[in-house]
C-alpha cells in the first residue's frame, strides 16, 4: 500500500458540497434532500412519506437485513482473499455498499427483474443467486455463471450502462404483457430495477434509457449507487448537480437516500417499485454511499484519495448503526450476533470449498453457444479443432513446444 495524498491536495467530499452549493447559486438547483431514517447514531428518525414504508420493516425483518449485510460483507472478505491466493483472477469488492444493495434487493419481489452492473453481489444474494456460481466470472470459467431465468437476476454487464437500456426494454415488455394479462383478467404486476453507478451516469445509454422510460412510462426503477468514486475519478467530475435531481429533467421522481441506511433504502425502493408496478412510471433513486475498499483487487485507492475520507465514511458504516439500534432497543442479543458471525463463516467456508471445484467450461461449449442455431463457419472451425487436437498423441491438448505444423492453412 502507498501513502495517501496529503489532506490539502484533495478533499472529495468538500468539493462535492461546494459543487452543489455552486449549482444552487448559479442555476437555482436545490441541494438534494437526503432521506435518512436510521442515522449513524443508531436512532430512528421520521420521514413524512417513507416512515410508513419503514414501519413494515418489523424487528424480525430488520434482523434479517442485518444478517444479510453481515453475510455479504463476510463473503466480500473471502472473495478478496481468494483473489489474493490466486483462486480468482479479479475481485470487485462491495464493502460499504451493503445497505444500498441488501435494502433494495430485499424490497424487490420474485416477479421483478433485476439488471445489475458488476458489483451487485449483495443484490445477487437477495435474489438467491448461488454465490459460488457468482464467482465463476471472476475465476475465469464463465462470462456469466448463473441462469438469469432461475432468479430474475440478470448477468453482470461490464460495458457500463448498457444494461440500463435492457432494463427499460424489459419493462416495456412487462407493459405489453400486462395489457395481455388484463385482457385475461389477471394483473401481472412486475417492475424492473436497473443498477448503475455515479461513473456510469455519464454514459449516453443512461440518458437514452431515461428518455425511453419516460416516453413510454415504463415500470422501471433506476437505482444509482453513488459510491463517490469511478475508479479514481470523483463524482464531481461526473456531475454538477445531485444525481437524483437529474430525474426532474426527464419528468419523473428522483430521490436521494442515505445508501448506508438499510431501512431508508428498503422503504424508498419499496415505494418506487410500487409506483412503477402501479403504472405511474419510472423513478430514479440515488443511494448516497461509499466504496470503502478498492475499485477492484487491481486498484490502489491510496493514489487518488486520502484515508481521512475513508475514515469519515467508516463512521457511517451501514452495519454498525443497525447493530446499535437492535441492541439499544433490546431487539437482538449477543447470541444473535454470534449466530450471524457463525453463519457468515459457514457461507465463506462454503464459497471457498466450492470455488476450488468450479468446473472449467470446455472450449467446445464456446463453439456451441456462439449462436443459438447451427452456423456452418462455427461447425467448420470446431471440426478443424477436433481434428487438430486429435492429432496429438496421448491427449487432446496441444503441447506448446511440439513443433508440429498446423494441420490446415488459416488456423
Amino acid at each position, binding site marked *: 500500500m502507498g501513502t495517501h495524498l496529503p489532506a490539502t491536495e484533495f478533499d472529495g467530499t468538500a468539493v462535492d458540497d461546494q459543487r452543489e452549493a455552486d449549482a444552487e447559486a448559479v442555476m437555482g438547483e436545490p441541494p438534494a434532500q437526503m432521506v435518512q431514517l436510521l442515522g449513524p447514531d443508531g436512532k430512528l428518525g421520521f420521514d413524512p412519506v417513507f416512515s410508513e414504508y419503514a414501519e413494515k420493516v418489523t424487528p424480525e425483518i430488520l434482523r434479517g437485513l442485518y444478517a444479510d449485510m453481515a453475510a455479504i460483507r463476510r463473503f466480500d472478505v473471502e472473495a478478496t482473499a481468494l483473489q489474493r491466493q490466486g483462486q480468482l483472477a479479479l475481485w470487485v469488492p462491495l464493502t460499504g455498499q451493503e445497505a444500498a444493495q441488501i435494502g433494495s434487493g430485499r424490497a424487490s419481489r420474485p416477479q421483478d427483474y433485476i439488471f445489475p452492473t458488476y458489483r451487485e453481489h449483495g443484490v445477487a444474494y437477495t435474489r438467491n443467486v448461488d454465490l459460488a456460481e457468482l464467482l465463476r466470472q471472476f475465476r475465469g470459467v464463465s462470462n456469466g455463471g448463473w*441462469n438469469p431465468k432461475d432468479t430474475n437476476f440478470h448477468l453482470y454487464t461490464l460495458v457500463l450502462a448498457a444494461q440500463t437500456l435492457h432494463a*427499460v426494454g424489459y419493462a416495456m415488455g412487462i407493459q*405489453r404483457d400486462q395489457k395481455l394479462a388484463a385482457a385475461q383478467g389477471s394483473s401481472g404486476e412486475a417492475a424492473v430495477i436497473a443498477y448503475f453507478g455515479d461513473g456510469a451516469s455519464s454514459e449516453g445509454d443512461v440518458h437514452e434509457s431515461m428518455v425511453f422510460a419516460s416516453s413510454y412510462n415504463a415500470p422501471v426503477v433506476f437505482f444509482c449507487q453513488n459510491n463517490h468514486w469511478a475508479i479514481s475519478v470523483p463524482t464531481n467530475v461526473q456531475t454538477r448537480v445531485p444525481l437524483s435531481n437529474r430525474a426532474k429533467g426527464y419528468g419523473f421522481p428522483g430521490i436521494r437516500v442515505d445508501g448506508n441506511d438499510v431501512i431508508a433504502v428498503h422503504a424508498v425502493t419499496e415505494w418506487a417499485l410500487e409506483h412503477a408496478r402501479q403504472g405511474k412510471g419510472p423513478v430514479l433513486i440515488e443511494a448516497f454511499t461509499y466504496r470503502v475498499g478498492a475499485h477492484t483487487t487491481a486498484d490502489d485507492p491510496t493514489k487518488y484519495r486520502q484515508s481521512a475520507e475513508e475514515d469519515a465514511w467508516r463512521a457511517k458504516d451501514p452495519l454498525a448503526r443497525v447493530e446499535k439500534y437492535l441492541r439499544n432497543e433490546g431487539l437482538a442479543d449477543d447470541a444473535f450476533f454470534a449466530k450471524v458471525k457463525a453463519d457468515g463463516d459457514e457461507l465463506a467456508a462454503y464459497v471457498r470449498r466450492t470455488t476450488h471445484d468450479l468446473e472449467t467450461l470446455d472450449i467446445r461449449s464456446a463453439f456451441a453457444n*456462439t*449462436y443459438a442455431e447451427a452456423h456452418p463457419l462455427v461447425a467448420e472451425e470446431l471440426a478443424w479443432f477436433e481434428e487438430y487436437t486429435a492429432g496429438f498423441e496421448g491427449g487432446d491438448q496441444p503441447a506448446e513446444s511440439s513443433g508440429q505444423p498446423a494441420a490446415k492453412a*488459416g488456423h
Partner: protein
Amino acid sequence: MTTMTIAKAINEGLRETLSSNPKSLLMGEDIGPLGGVYRVTDGLIGEFGPDRVVDTPLAESGIIGTAIGLALRGYRPVCEIQFDGFVFPGFNQITTQLAKMHARSNGNLTVPVVIRIPYGGGIGSVEHHSESPEALFAHTAGLRIITPSNAHDAYWMVQQAVECQDPVIIFEPKRRYWLKGEVDTAAPGRAGDPFKAHVLREGTDATVVAYGPLVPVALAAANAAEEDGRSVEVIDLRSISPLDFDTVTASVQKTGRLVVAHEAPTFGGIGGEIAARISERAFHSLEAPVIRVGGFHMPYPVAKVEEDYLPDIDRILEALDRALSY
C-alpha cells in the same frame, strides 16, 4: 405470383409477421404515421397500433438496447435504423451486448432481435446516407447478416429473420427499394434458407459473386460479357454471415476464375475474406487470382462524384478481363 417493389415486399413481409406472431413488434424513428423515410412500414401502425409499431425517441443505442430488453422478455423486435451511417450510435449495443448475450449466458438466453438497415449509395444523398458497413458487423461473432437483392427474397427473408433465434441484421439495398419483381407469397421456393447463396446465372468461364445492390449490376455485366463470347456465372450471396462458401467453391471449381464485387471498400472487406477462403478451398481450380471490385479506401465521397466510386458494369467487366487474361 404478385409483382411488387422490394420496399413493398418488405412491407408485406412485416405485415405477415405482425399478423402471425403476436410477440413481434417494429421499432424505429418515423416508422409510425410517416411509414419510415422510405415508407417501408407504410400503413402498419394503422393496422397494428402504436404498441406494435413503435415510433421511438431519436436514439439508436436506445432503439437497440431496449429491443434487447424486449427480446429478453420474450418479444421479437424488428428495429429500423434510418440510414446506414446512423447505426454507429447503436454499434456498442449491437457488438458488445446483442452479439454476445447468448454466449455470455452459456446458451441460457436468446436475443432474437432483427435490425433493418437501408445501405449503399447511388441515391445522390448527403454524408452518412450511402455507406456499406456490413464488414464491421460480419467480423462480430454472434450476429447473422443477410441482404436481399430482389423482392421475393426480401419478402421471405424479413420473415425468416424474425423467426431466427439469433440476432439478424438485414442490410436492405436502398437504391433498389423501387426495383420490381415477382413475389410468390404462398411459398418461398428455393428462398427457404436465408443463409444460402443462389446461383442466378450459370456460366463456365468465370464467376462473379455479388450481393445486395450490385446483383443487378453483376447480371448486366454477365450479359454484356456474353456478347463477347464469355460465359459468366453470377452468384447472389444473400447471406454475408454465415457465408455460403460451399456454393462459391463449387462454382469456382467449375469456372476457375472469381471476381467479387461489393460497394464497400475492398480493404478489410467481405471480398478479401472470400478471396482468402477460396484460395484455401479451391487453390488448384483457380486459373487466376481472385479479383475484387469495390469502393476505394476513403470516406464515401460526395454525391456528385459517387458514380466514380461505385462499382458499375464496366468495372466488373474490367475485372473479368483481368481474371481471364491469366
